[in-house]
């Protein structure tokens, strides 16, 4: 059916005179001349489709080969299955390529796609938040790039073109930026006489933060991960359908232990300890290697620059990404850390914005840095970390006590259920079953008690700052003028004890300050609203001119 569909295009697919001239290398001026008429993505995309379907054909092919007996005709059947899957993948990706066109219009980008049902999507230039380029390993080897247009619609709704040639991608990005700026400057041409951006364009980009191999190594040490064992367990479970191993069968492991245990028992106590130590060492080694590999592959060549267009971040060893985020799109920032790295002064910095970054809503602009290294980035985004004379306010004591009691009540309930269950079925375990939830509840209460001191917020000239966390404090900063609504929420306990939670409407992120006195919540809200009321939303866009100056 797909072949028939491709042969007779019922829908008006603009198969213009370009019929056969799928020129892989576009001429420098061809881009401008072709603007306004539908174009296809790079023909090499089909090969990426073939290669990735080969990749996904591997496992079924292996399954077919092993399933039918690897020694006999199995190998042939396996090969056949692999070839069929790869062939189908190629055909489908060819049809998809054939049926997808994009048009660079005067005011928007239009993408028409679909094999059986056609869909046409149009995105106006001024709605495009930023254009990011991504190169996974395969496309990178072929010199291709995926172009993503972030509109703030989020994740799957965003428009992307896979794949264009590198030059074409770069040029498209430049073109979108120019058109967007034209649209924006036309819109406020009468309001804004001067255009400081135009003169700023010639300025060279300034390096804000980059990570060399030695920094990556330190980062990798802290990224210790045992995820590889989970993957191995998953693989093992997958394999048990091919081999005669029942992963979840206790007898298998007992037999193995008895079989192997014989010679272990023969060893001296010293030898056994040595073996245990070696095993532990191996786990640590593998965990470190995993963390190191993941860190290096994700963050290799990390570079954050301040360009006239905004912040530009490039990173990646196998999958290379190149993201540009305009300064005025930054809604707020988060400085976070983790338990151990905090002891050594390492922090991460994220920008909150409507654009998406690898599935998360905020952009990591410095994943592993000292606070002094973060300050220039924070300043470049128009923010500042609260200084020493900031006026901090805490949550109420009543909030602390209520939340501790509330948490503990769950552990008590757990202890009660565990106690009753063990009393009925296994009385000898009752003590332990009750003690564990109680101990966890007590630990929870202690952490809740201690962390209260570290949960605080402050207002400064134009920001609101909230800090929380005792073992790994995290800081959230938002510009008050960029907030969209303020809500004071009170549950039944909060009303009795006179505290409230303040929810701030931030574009692209959550910002809540729990447990502050009700009067303080009213005061903070009044001050935020006074700041907001002075600037209309439509003026927020032109704020960036002030920030850039």
């Amino acid at each position, binding site marked *: 059916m797909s072949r028939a569909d491709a042969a007779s295009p019922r829908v008006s697919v603009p198969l213009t005179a370009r019929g056969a001239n799928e020129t892989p290398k576009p001429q420098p001026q061809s881009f401008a001349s072709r603007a306004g008429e539908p174009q296809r993505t790079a023909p090499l995309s089909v090969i990426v489709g073939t290669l990735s379907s080969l990749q996904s054909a591997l496992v079924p092919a292996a399954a077919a080969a092993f399933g039918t007996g690897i020694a006999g005709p199995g190998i042939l059947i396996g090969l056949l299955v692999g070839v069929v899957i790869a062939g189908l993948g190629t055909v489908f990706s060819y049809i998809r390529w054939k049926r997808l066109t994009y048009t660079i219009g005067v005011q928007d980008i239009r993408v028409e796609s679909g094999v059986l049902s056609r869909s046409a999507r149009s995105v106006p230039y001024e709605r495009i938040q930023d254009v990011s380029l991504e190169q996974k390993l395969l496309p990178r080897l072929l010199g291709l790039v995926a172009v993503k247009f972030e509109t703030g619609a989020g994740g799957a709704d965003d428009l992307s073109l896979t794949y264009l040639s590198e030059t074409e991608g770069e040029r498209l990005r430049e073109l979108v930026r120019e058109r967007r700026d034209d649209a924006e400057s036309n819109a406020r041409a009468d309001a804004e006489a001067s255009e400081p951006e135009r003169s700023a364009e010639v300025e060279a980009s300034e390096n804000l933060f980059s990570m060399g191999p030695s920094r990556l190594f330190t980062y990798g040490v802290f990224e210790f991960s045992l995820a590889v064992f989970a993957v191995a367990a998953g693989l093992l479970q997958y394999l048990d359908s091919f081999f005669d191993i029942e992963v979840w069968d206790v007898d298998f492991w007992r037999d193995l232990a008895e079989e192997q245990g014989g010679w272990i028992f023969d060893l001296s106590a010293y030898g056994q300890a040595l073996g245990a130590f070696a095993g532990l060492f191996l786990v640590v080694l593998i965990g470190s290697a995993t963390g190191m590999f993941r860190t290096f592959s994700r963050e290799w060549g990390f570079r954050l620059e301040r360009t006239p267009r905004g912040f530009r971040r490039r990173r990646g060893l196998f999958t290379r990404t190149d993201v540009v985020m305009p300064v005025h799109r930054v809604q707020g920032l988060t400085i976070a850390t983790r338990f151990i790295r905090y002891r050594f002064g390492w922090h991460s910095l994220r920008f909150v914005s*409507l654009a998406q970054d690898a599935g998360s*809503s905020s952009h990591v602009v410095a994943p592993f840095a000292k606070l002094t290294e973060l300050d220039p980035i924070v300043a470049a985004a128009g923010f500042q970390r609260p200084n020493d004379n900031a006026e901090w306010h805490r949550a109420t004591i009543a909030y602390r006590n209520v939340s501790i009691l509330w948490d503990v009540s769950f552990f008590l309930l757990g202890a009660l259920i565990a106690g009753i269950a063990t009393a009925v079925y296994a009385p000898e375990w009752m003590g332990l079953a009750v003690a564990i939830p109680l101990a966890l509840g007590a630990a929870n209460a202690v952490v809740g008690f201690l962390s209260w001191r570290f949960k605080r917020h402050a207002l*400064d*000239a*134009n920001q609101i700052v909230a800090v929380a966390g005792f073992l790994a404090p995290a800081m959230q900063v938002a510009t*008050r*003028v960029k*907030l*969209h*609504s*303020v*809500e*004071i*929420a*009170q*549950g*039944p306990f909060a*009303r009795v004890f006179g505290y409230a939670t303040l*929810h*701030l*409407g*931030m*574009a*692209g*992120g*959550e*910002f*809540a300050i729990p447990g502050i006195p009700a009067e303080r919540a*009213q*005061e903070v*809200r*009044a*001050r935020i*609203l*006074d*700041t*907001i*009321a*002075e*600037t*209309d*939303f*439509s*003026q927020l866009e*032109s*704020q960036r*001119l*002030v920030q850039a100056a």
Partner: protein
Amino acid sequence: MDSASISVSSDPVSPAPAVSASISTVAQGDAGLTKLDPAYKTALRISVTLTAIPFVVGAFVAEAALASAGEGGWPLPFGVLIGIVVFLALAFIIRLPGRRWQARGYAMGEDRLRVVRGILWRSDTIVPFGRIQHIDVDQGPIERALGIATLTLHTAGNHNASVPLPGLRHEIATEMREDIRQRIKRDSL
């Protein structure tokens, strides 16, 4: 003009919540709140009744099934399950709408709308007109029969991306929409 408004906002010496004109237009307590249209209670009552019907029917079916199952497992006399479900349903139908209505309210300020709701979990939201992305006036079938409507304000924030205000007379809702729309326009000029 932007820089001027920013320098005002970044005035570092204003310590306390100076009661400005814009705050006084929206009172902080529940005093200055406008109540919703009483027809909102009727609308709630109808929708709660519609929700309760399947539960009551389910209770009858379950009771009948258990009774016919014989003297095996069901220890309670006939009608207890039905009684509980019907009692709860009546309580929700009679009591809840009035209390909900009592708990809700709104206040139109010079440049902001305040929406208060919730019986046990109180929520008090203020949306500045300058941050509203678009405004909806919706009417479901029940609302339409009663001549009321829901006004929904949409913002760009993740929290409170849409703030609904139900139980307004349809004319008032459209009037408020026009009012807010004009103020947005005036503010941005």
